[in-house]
């Protein structure tokens, strides 16, 4: 092996790499405002300025979610000319790379290097758990936009807020609804075998059984199960309804296998299973699937109209819950900032956030004392409208909080859902 060859190509390629890295930074990663790092371009509003750290995945399995949250946030910011409540907003985006180690590093970078006064984002709950304690200790508010673990919002008076759902929040109304309104008395649960799957399934199972109906089977499949046949073929065909918690690409595979094996039991799902990001790919297989979620692009209210119009003008596809989460986060921040007098400190924003009450595209949104959003939950059904598959709203459960109708203290005494999985069907 000659070791002498190729020093020149090495230099050339290194140069090319650096050049590419340079180009890449200008490449529109989300199509949002050009707001990459650089506090030099600090926008100064009448009341001052605030640096917002967007910590959403731009690579890895949750990239599509993270991009949409960022896009939603920036779209709202754009619509307000880059200022929220007369504070100039500087957006700095970092990629947590779906890895707690990277995410913790990036959270510190946002706060310590970029001077972020608030961090918004996080999709993976494990990452959120890893990052939250640092932000707490640093006194920087954290607004979660996707990560769903119930346990993240169980501390009163913290600096953590969440505009998106907890694992069980959107499915608890569904249990009641399916049992009482739809009159489907026995259910088979098919969920992903990780905490979100157990929480969403458990939320459904709890209210469903409390309403007098019966969970007859529970099946849990690993995240990113390539072949769903082993699970689909085990589904108890005597059940009246199949309750599915299969977000992301698993939803596509689950429904394909479900239809392929000729099952015809109606499906009711946690809303992320029929997300608008997935509907075009799922097509016919999603037809008629019902679900519960705190958003649907076809909600009829002025805030949603503004949002959907702004979105569709810019992107050639439907809005979805993630984009709305980002948009609503920006709205919530705006509302909080309108309460902050002067310098937007961590404490100032945190205190103001507690009293935030906004009309988001999803409807009315405010936070409970644990920092978790209270919002309306919609019962939806996948239907074809104007040649496109949409989650048509068939019913609304207003002002759902993370404990649903249960007494808070009683609810907090319940064993966690990871302990309860497998016990519902018994």
């Amino acid at each position: 092996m000659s070791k002498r060859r190729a020093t020149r190509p090495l230099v050339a390629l290194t140069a090319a790499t650096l050049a590419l890295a340079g180009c890449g930074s200008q490449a529109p990663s989300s199509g949002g405002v050009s707001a990459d790092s650089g506090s030099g371009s600090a926008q100064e509003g009448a009341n001052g300025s605030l640096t917002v750290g967007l910590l959403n995945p731009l690579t890895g399995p949750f990239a599509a979610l993270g991009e949409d949250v960022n896009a939603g946030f920036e779209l709202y910011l754009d619509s307000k000319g880059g200022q929220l409540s007369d504070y100039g907003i500087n957006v700095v985006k970092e990629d947590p790379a779906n890895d707690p180690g990277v995410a913790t590093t990036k959270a510190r970078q946002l706060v310590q290097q970029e001077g972020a006064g608030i961090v918004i984002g996080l999709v993976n709950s494990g990452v959120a758990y890893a990052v939250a304690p640092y932000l707490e200790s640093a006194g920087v508010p954290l607004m979660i936009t996707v990560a769903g673990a119930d346990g993240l919002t169980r501390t009163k008076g913290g600096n953590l807020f969440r505009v998106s759902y907890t694992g069980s929040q959107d499915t608890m109304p569904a249990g009641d609804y399916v049992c009482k309104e739809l009159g489907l008395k026995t259910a088979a649960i098919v969920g992903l075998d990780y905490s979100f799957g157990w929480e969403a399934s458990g939320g459904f199972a709890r209210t469903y059984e409390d309403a007098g109906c019966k969970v007859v089977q529970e099946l849990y499949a690993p995240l990113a199960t390539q072949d769903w046949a082993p699970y689909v073929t085990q589904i108890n065909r005597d059940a009246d309804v199949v309750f599915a918690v299969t977000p992301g690409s698993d939803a596509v595979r689950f429904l394909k296998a479900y239809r392929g094996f000729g099952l015809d039991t109606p499906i009711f799902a946690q809303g992320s299973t029929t997300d608008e990001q997935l509907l075009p790919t799922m097509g016919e297989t999603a037809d008629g699937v019902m679900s519960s979620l705190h958003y649907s692009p076809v909600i009829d209210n002025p805030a949603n109209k503004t949002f959907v119009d702004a979105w569709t003008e810019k992107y050639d596809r439907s809005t979805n819950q993630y984009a709305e989460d980002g948009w609503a986060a920006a709205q919530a921040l705006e509302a909080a900032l309108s309460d902050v007098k002067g310098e937007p400190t961590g404490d100032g924003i945190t205190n103001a956030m507690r009293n935030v009450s906004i009309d988001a595209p999803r409807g009315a949104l405010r936070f409970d004392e644990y920092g978790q959003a209270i919002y309306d939950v919609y019962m939806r059904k996948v239907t074809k409208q104007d040649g496109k598959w949409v989650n048509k709203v068939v019913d609304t459960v207003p002002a759902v909080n993370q404990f649903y109708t249960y007494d808070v203290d009683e609810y907090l005494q319940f064993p966690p859902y990871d302990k309860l999985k497998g016990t519902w069907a018994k």
Partner: protein
Amino acid sequence: MNLPSPGDHVKSRRLRSAVVLGVLLLVLLALPFVLPSFYLFVATRILALGLFATAFNIVFGFGGMPSLGHAAFFGLGAYVVGIASTRSDLPFVVIVVLTLVAGTALGVVFGLFNLRAKGIYLLLLTLALAQAAYGLAFQQVELTGGDNGISGITREGVPIPGSASAFYWLALAMVVVSLSLMWAFMRSPVGMAITGLRESESRLAATGYRVGSYRVYAFAVSGAFSAVAGLLDAYLLGSASPSNMAFLLSAEVMVFAILGGAAFFFGPFLGAAVILSLELYVSTLTSRWTFVLGIVYVLTALFMSDGILGRIAYLRRRARRKTAESPTRAAAGETDVAVPADTDDLVEERHT
């Protein structure tokens, strides 16, 4: 034969290496006084992953066994900390010992599985083992917290728990001690026999060494220190999660070793520092950082398969060509003239 005696040469170089190491250590000790806290955090992370890469290299660069499952050890260390520190009041020292024991035990398992496998088969056997370990971490929620991992790891039991600087110094001390122990180990008969594994297993066996045992020793020692690296990382981040055991980390540590120079004791550490810094820098510039990382991998494979230190050593050898001539090949008209290996030099510590 009329050769320059390498004796004086080696002595002067040994002195120089000692000076270089001493200065480096002083600089590292002084970092908390000059670095902003974020970069101190990054530096601590580099220490942990640098230790991991160095430990990995016992099996990889020295033992010649391309393990693609080393994340299992790193993750194991992190989980030991996660479980022990959140569920017990065990003192720090005990947790360190537990980590060492667990890492050694898993290393023995890896070694026993790999008594015979070679090359690509070893690569994939270790990968399968690590994936099985990953499966346990992900699915045995009672113990590991599943996908949420274990968070809220505090440094309460850690000596001087307070400041980031204190933890940095603790990490530095542990890394220095670990590296010294590994360095000494690799010069011991067992360590040299592990190096012999890479060079020729058949000769090793014909010499009277039981080859399989040394494979197990290599994995055990490597596993123990890899687990310590995981321990440091978990204390630093305050969390342990399945991604500590993931395939990509196993692949990344191999790139650390190769880019830095797997033939050199300090190569992998250097590689870890370079790649982690680069990742941080590029990911700040662009969200397309995985693409750039891909380019770095490709360039490493094409042009740096001897690593940065390998290249430096080569350039130095070339520069020294005029002063030293190979005893044998020069006469035969070969151009790539060699010089004696200096066993105490940082760069020339060649084991591959």
